[in-house]
């Protein structure tokens, strides 16, 4: 059962094509996890996150300046190469400028029938941030209605919220299984579950998760106890990286990034105004660095994860040229150290060879062993 998640992740284009053929429905690609998938599900459309291939490419160079991150270039490259030719449209919510550029270039060069930008406040702590987001969600809903030629009702929105919340709830249960020593699921497996949830129909994915939750407690092939690590930083959807770290005897027990816990951590709390409930969910979710501009709320959340999941060390990974994280890493590193947490910084380029990751992770694990002595 557990292999299903990684398999689906590896064949996500095939999955989406097959889903379309099977249901006759439309598929929308989204660029950032601040896109309100609830509304997309409510519209009867399948949202799938646009991700890169992790391979070097040379087609984005003409569109995205060289100092933008390899991830956004990789994403655009997939579109330019026709890998996402099954998408009926794309959606972006305001995140970093790197991703915004990939989105904008996509709308210029790749034929689609629908594209929409959802404004997302950065200073989510502002009293009026919710009102602004609500207006943007209303505009998004209206745009979808116009495109699809149908009305999205409250009942549809309830269904959308329910689909998302169920999946979030189940993923939280999976993450709880990473708390014991040894954890019941590896970091690689857990990450495959999260990423595959972004790429599949969540109704189906939730069934797989429920099945997995039944099977995991009985499994005999679970991970062995190792050094417990937290991974923190920029976008990363490279399962090989987790495998490599875990092959060295570590257990990745928790992480904080948008391909992991941040994606599903909190649920939408139902209220009369459905769009308001959805807006509040995105306002209140664990913050990425770009949404942590006023009071630093991200830091206590991260420290809490370290404690609750009993991580012995934190690996700070940063996508090359990722400004949002470049701004935060020195300060969060200092903060964690001040709180007695051992950290190690690693810069990554998702499209490049991972040879040096092994050596650097080994060095960190040795460091942690020495700390323990």
């Amino acid at each position, binding site marked *: 059962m557990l292999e299903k998640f990684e398999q689906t992740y590896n064949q996500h284009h095939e999955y989406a094509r097959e889903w379309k053929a099977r249901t006759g429905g439309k598929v929308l690609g989204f660029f950032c996890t601040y896109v309100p998938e609830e509304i997309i599900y409510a519209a009867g459309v399948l949202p799938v996150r646009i991700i890169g291939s992790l391979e070097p490419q040379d087609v984005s160079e003409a569109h995205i300046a060289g100092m933008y991150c390899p991830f956004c270039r990789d994403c655009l490259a997939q579109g330019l190469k026709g890998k996402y030719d099954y998408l009926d449209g794309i959606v972006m919510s305001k995140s970093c400028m790197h991703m*915004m550029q990939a989105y904008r270039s996509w709308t210029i060069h790749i034929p689609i029938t629908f594209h929409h930008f959802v404004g997302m406040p*950065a200073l989510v702590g502002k009293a*009026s941030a919710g009102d602004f987001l609500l207006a943007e969600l209303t505009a998004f809903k209206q745009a979808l209605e116009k495109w699809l030629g149908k009305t999205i009702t409250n009942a549809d929105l309830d269904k959308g919220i329910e689909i998302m919340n169920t999946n979030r709830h189940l993923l939280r249960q999976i993450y709880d299984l990473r708390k014991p020593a040894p954890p019941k699921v590896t970091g690689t497996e857990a990450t495959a579950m999260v990423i595959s949830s972004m790429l599949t129909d969540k109704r189906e994915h939730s069934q797989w998760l429920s099945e997995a939750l039944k099977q995991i407690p009985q499994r005999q092939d679970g991970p062995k106890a190792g050094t417990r690590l937290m991974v923190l930083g920029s976008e990363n959807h490279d399962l090989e990286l987790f495998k490599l770290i875990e092959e060295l005897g570590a257990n990745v027990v928790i992480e904080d990034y948008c391909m992991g816990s941040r994606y599903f951590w909190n649920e939408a709390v139902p209220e009369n105004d459905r769009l308001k409930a959805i807006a509040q969910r995105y306002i209140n979710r664990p913050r990425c660095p770009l949404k942590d501009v006023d009071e630093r709320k991200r830091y206590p959340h991260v420290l809490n994860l370290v404690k609750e999941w009993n991580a012995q060390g934190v690996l700070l990974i940063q996508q090359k040229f990722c400004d949002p994280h470049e701004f935060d890493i020195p300060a969060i590193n200092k903060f964690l150290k001040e709180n007695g947490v051992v950290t190690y910084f690693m810069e990554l380029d998702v499209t490049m060879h991972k040879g040096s990751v092994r050596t650097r992770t080994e060095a960190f694990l040795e460091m942690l062993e020495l700390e323990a002595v």
Partner: protein
Amino acid sequence: MATQTTYKVEPLETYRWAKEVRLKHFKEVMDAQAEGHMLVTGNMNAPKDLIAGIGHYVFMGGEPWAVAMAREGAKDLFLPALEAMEKQGFARDMCAFCRTFSGSMFLGQTPFGPFPKPSFVLGMNQCDSKGKWFQIVADHMQVPYYCIDFGLPNTDGTLKPNEASIKFLLTQYHEFIDWLKKFTGKPYDESRMVHALANMYKVRCLWGEVLQMQATSPSPLEYKLLLPFFLCLEYFSYKDEVVKLMTALRDETKYRVANYITPLPNEKYRVLHDGLPPWYALYLFHFLRDHGVSVVGGSNHTMFVACAQKPRPDGSFNLMDPMDWDGIPKTFDEALKWRANVEYISNMFGLDTRVRLLFAREAYRAWKGNGMIWINDRGCELFSMGILEVKAALQKDGVPCMMYESNRCDVREWSWSQVADHMDAFLEAVGVPKSEIKKDLGGKLGEKE
């Protein structure tokens, strides 16, 4: 090919004045505390003018101080500041204005004396860097940080205002004023604020008129000459002195147009430079001048043109539509509303590639360009955002284009030979005969200006 004509060249009197205003400002910042004035630091588009309601204050803007480091502090502070940031663990590819300014803070030194401690930090979150940059400053200085968020909304790619976005700004302005009253314990005099905003409005009207005159051939001014005004426009336009300065600039430009006075004796070609220049290598513009190429404008101007023009009701934009003098805000609400609109337009310029293209095409047309240059600034996502798409679109329009990669505020990323590689073909496309294209900077390399 354009024919050779020789024009009258006279120095721009108000240029010296603008430079004085700039230097006076640096001194004001250094003396602020000793003189009992409140010192506030923050980024370019922070709503510093709203502080006027509580009385006199001095604003230390991050970007002009970074430029001062690149110029006045070039010899002994610029590189150490960049390195100080790296020692703190910050990456070398982050915003170079941020690294220079914050590096200067970590060193505790500016070109004019010790780095002063502000009373609070005021930010406007626009690009990925501005909000985060001043978070670093507030953390290190251990002072409160107040940041305003620009909510970039969904739009149709024109300048039609988005109600929700403007309302979001307005609400935050009100909240900031409330916070300011509490923080300072001072009463807020709305009329002072309205006066400051009316000054900003007037300065933009004047600036619009000046830029309109730039459409004249030969152009009365050029890019490099406009730089110190640009600074005054963006940082101190709430001051009475800047209204006077800009009035003088407008009048002097009128005089220059009437008398065919130009900065170049031989303007033959007109190009635009998009993006802020490499501040430590402004001799690049002398090199262009030597070829009869006048840089008549650029995106920093167009961006502020945006603040000096009235978009049409359909969201389109015409460089030759300046703001109405009779729209000067008179009440508190009018002033705030006008400010939010200006903020909205200038942010849309940077953050939406479609708007950027609209501006580039319009500026090229209105200023009668013969070519367009972009700096692909490795240290600034905002100014590099969309430029490859804009360049490709203009190339399709048949515009001679050139792009060079550098970093406006990290001298380690400047290479004249790389710039020169693109220059030959560009100058030829603009119309400069191949035989007249110089290979080097004519001994200007290494000179400050």
